[in-house]
């Protein structure tokens, strides 16, 4: 899945990879693609995770893991970092999700469980700020409930922000409230249509 996302990120893009699975996308971005990684805790030009002696507690990513810096990196403070996001300067942001709606609404910060301790971090800022938001998630949760839904039931992160959804079974493009299936993995568009509660169309592959 990370490989497909990496394939679809245009060369020369400025990209933010969310905590968890999205960080794997970095492994599939060849250096000649000139993708520059942003981490919202104040850096552009982030390199791979740090190992051994390269670990510096003052150099971490948004998941608080030690990372490295690449030539051409830049550091900045939190207001500047989020101004960069909110101002629409990032080309792509890749995030996980609990639910995505056909309109592109995103729910990925809270399950609505009243006992859960809420934490939002930078997710809402990324959702409204990046020019395009890609989501990586399993298409169904453990009990088989679809996570691509007509309307999110979990608390929202952002409205109409997701344009592509990468899942274990298919890749979806969301446009004008329509869901296009652009690729399938071991399943068919008809089969997906029968398992999801949203109408899907066989569509063109992402540009």
């Amino acid at each position, binding site marked *: 899945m990370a490989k497909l996302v990496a394939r679809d990120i245009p060369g020369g893009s400025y990209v933010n990879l969310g905590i968890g699975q999205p960080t794997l996308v970095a492994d599939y971005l060849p250096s000649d693609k000139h993708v520059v990684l942003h981490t919202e805790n104040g850096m552009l030009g982030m390199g791979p995770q740090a190992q051994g002696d390269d670990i510096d*507690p003052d150099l971490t990513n948004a998941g608080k893991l030690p990372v490295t810096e690449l030539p051409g990196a830049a550091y900045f403070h939190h207001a500047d970092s989020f101004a960069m996001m909110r101002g629409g300067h990032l080309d792509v942001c890749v995030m996980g999700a609990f639910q995505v709606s056909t309109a592109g609404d995103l729910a990925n910060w809270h399950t609505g469980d009243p006992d859960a301790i809420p934490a939002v971090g930078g997710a*809402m800022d990324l959702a409204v700020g990046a020019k395009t938001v890609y989501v990586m998630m399993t298409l169904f949760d453990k009990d088989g409930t679809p996570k691509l839904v007509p309307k999110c039931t979990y608390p929202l992160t952002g409205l109409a922000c997701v344009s592509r959804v990468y899942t274990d079974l298919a890749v979806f493009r969301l446009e004008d409230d329509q869901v296009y299936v652009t690729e399938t993995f071991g399943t068919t568009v008809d089969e997906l249509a029968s398992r999801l509660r949203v109408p899907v169309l066989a569509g063109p592959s992402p540009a």
Partner: protein
Amino acid sequence: MIEVCGDAEAALRDLRDGATVLVGGFGEAGLPFGLLDGLLRCDAAGLTVVSNNAGNGHSGLAAVLATGRVRKIICSYPRQVDSWVFDRLYREGKIELELVPQGNLAERIRAAGAGIGGFYTPTGVGTPLAAGKEVRNIAGRDYILELPIHGDVALIRADTADEAGNLTYRKTARNFGPIMATAAKVTVAEVNRVVPAGAIDPENVVTPGIFVNRVVLAVGTAKAGSARSGSRETTR
């Protein structure tokens, strides 16, 4: 002109009950461990802490929360794998939480330092975190109104201070330091070294001295790599 304090207690001497304390750091990067240790030895209670996280493990901010002297925390991401102290206080109803999206948190702190009365942000529109906030459509897009967060004291971690109070930072430990320094009545910076005025290139100053009141040298700790033993270099 800054005051170089001998220890954290001296730097925190005017902390009062009910104060709002801005605490720099993102996770442990940029967390002012020495100042937080000093805070443990202060009497001030009923504090409001503004910080991106709500502490982890048992040291630093977590240790401060454990004293019970923090009434409220304003942050974006309280829950971490080892945020045991906060989790317990929260579940026991012993601490109030104001959850703010990280960019709105940063911008509200900046606004306080910049004399901005409020601003319209698109972040959070249509979400539960916009509940009760004014929504306004400007040029076809919805925004919510957010207000500044002022601090009584800012406790931040920097790298080098010069005697004019100018600061530099190290890598992503910069995070909230520069904006918190602008937003508090008194800003205290924990630094690795103090150098003479002029030793930092004026082009490379990140926080100008006007925003800094006191500095203390960091004491080496096992936890934070940034908390290397500090040294006061010879001054002219």
